[in-house]
């Protein structure tokens, strides 16, 4: 690892003459089958809705208007600010944030604990935390649904133990959705924090302890600020996929209230049949995610200088 680390970052250029050819296949396929579709979706969000699905090539702002303004049941009331869709987005953000906090509360101690084990034990703990991530997401969500349903093993078990008298309702609640999201993305929180804590030099903590700093103060004032980039990375890795999640709200939330994912799905696969609106909602979701990621990239770049 001598090259690159010490000096002014010399980058090997063995393949420089053909690099464009090497990268072209990836560029082309992602460009043609992802960038182009997203651009087309942007165009669609400005087109007129065809009755019962599809679009008419006639530019309009109707989709964004529908998102922002409520014109009443019959569409002829004076426009007032439409809260419903903003609420759906707010709800999704709250759910994603809830899942992120939940992941952080459990994930941080877990990551810390694993990072402070001996090398052999570390590997085993890490393996245990990551295995569920490799299991199909759908199967994990279904398993969670089975476990927490009203007559499921969790409630039966608690009742058998005499801890509760009647099944307490978990399924079809917001908490169930957060639990599902937590369960889906927990390893994303643990791994970056683990990496940061592992790099952390515990001599810093020991020095503070020599100066009679209380234990939890050391954690709060010294360790956490140092591993912060790992914590932020973990939060983003959980928050972003949670925002557009579809399976957890659908299977664990009872599909009773829309989340961003199900709102978009409904426009194309369900009864709403409003493609431009679905495209507009997708663009808004995409913009939000890109803003979060850009802010993160900025802060990372600053941190490196």
């Amino acid at each position: 690892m001598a090259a690159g680390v010490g000096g002014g970052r010399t980058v090997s250029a063995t393949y420089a003459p053909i690099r464009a050819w090497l990268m072209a296949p990836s560029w082309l396929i992602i460009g043609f089958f992802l960038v182009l579709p997203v651009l087309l979706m942007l165009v669609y969000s400005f087109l007129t809705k065809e009755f019962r699905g599809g679009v008419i090539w006639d530019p309009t702002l109707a989709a964004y208007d529908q998102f922002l303004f409520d014109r009443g049941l019959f569409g002829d009331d004076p426009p007032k600010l439409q809260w419903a869709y903003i609420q759906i987005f707010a709800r999704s953000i709250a759910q994603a944030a809830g899942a992120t906090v939940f992941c952080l509360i459990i994930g941080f101690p877990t990551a810390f604990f694993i990072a402070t084990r001996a090398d052999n034990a570390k590997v085993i703990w890490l393996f245990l935390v990551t295995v569920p991530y490799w299991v199909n997401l759908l199967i994990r969500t279904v398993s969670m649904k089975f476990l927490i349903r009203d007559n499921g093993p969790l409630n039966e078990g608690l009742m058998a133990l005499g801890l509760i008298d009647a099944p307490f309702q978990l399924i079809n609640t917001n908490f169930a959705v957060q639990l599902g999201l937590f369960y889906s993305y927990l390893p994303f929180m643990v791994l970056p924090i683990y990496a940061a804590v592992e790099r952390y030099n515990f001599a810093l903590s020991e020095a503070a302890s020599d100066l009679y700093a209380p234990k939890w103060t050391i954690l709060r004032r010294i360790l956490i600020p140092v591993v912060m980039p790992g914590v932020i990375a973990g939060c983003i890795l959980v928050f972003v996929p949670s925002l557009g999640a579809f399976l957890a709200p659908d299977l664990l939330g009872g599909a009773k209230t829309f989340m961003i994912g199900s709102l978009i799905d409904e426009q194309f696969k369900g009864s709403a049949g409003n493609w431009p609106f679905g495209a507009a909602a997708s663009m808004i979701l995409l913009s939000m995610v890109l803003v979060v990621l850009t802010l993160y990239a900025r802060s990372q770049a600053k941190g490196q200088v």
Partner: protein
Amino acid sequence: MRGGFDVKHYTGFFALTCLCLFILYAPLIIVMIYSFNDSLSITQWDGVSLRWYRDIFTGVESEKFKLAAWNSLTIAISAASVATVFATAAAVGMIRGGNFRGKSASFALISLPIMVPEIVTAVATLIFFSAIGFKLGTLSILVAHIVFCIPFAYLPISARLQGIEASFEEAAQDLYATRWQTFRHVLMPIMGPGIVSGFLLAFIISLDDFIITNFVKGSGVETLPTAIFGAVKQGIKPNIMALSTLLLLFSILLVTCSYFIGKRGEAIQPKS
């Protein structure tokens, strides 16, 4: 140690780690246990049996599940293979291509499929396919999968390549090896474990995908996740639990393999 305590030990962290593992494993273990339930109903325990495992291989729905498993497997192998080849080429271009303008833009483009929320990719791809008249079927799923597999294959491959010193290739080139020979006989063997990890990650991501597949699949084409989703929408049945358990074991097998390949990789990595 003036404070008289271990700075690496915090009370409660071990308990939370155990809680974490409990939450992660409890649902899976419960499903595994119930897959051996002899009862028709999932809520009642009637003793241990393998009937649901027989059911998924010989029952009424077995043909559907077999076909879905076959589709999933062929799509995942094809998508992961193509993505791995593309990602390996891209990684060599990015990491061994010197400094060039647009390097970060190029990296952003390659990682775009990870950044765009899945539901957005799904919708955009559906709109695009329907606009250009691309017939939905197995091929449409494959194309969509290749796209989102590329960054997942790219990450482990480029990470591996970054850890390899350029002196090996430079030595080879000093001895008049062509670029291809250098790649084939010097770079690729050292990159091997990274390429395999990339392939496995892409493979599992493809096998896992539900949202995008559900949008772009054609008539009569189901993958395991879409078939399972269709089945569980009507209620969780015992045969789904047996199927889930088999998939679970398959995933654990894969992750164990990838772990040992990673281990071997560390062993043969040239130390500087």
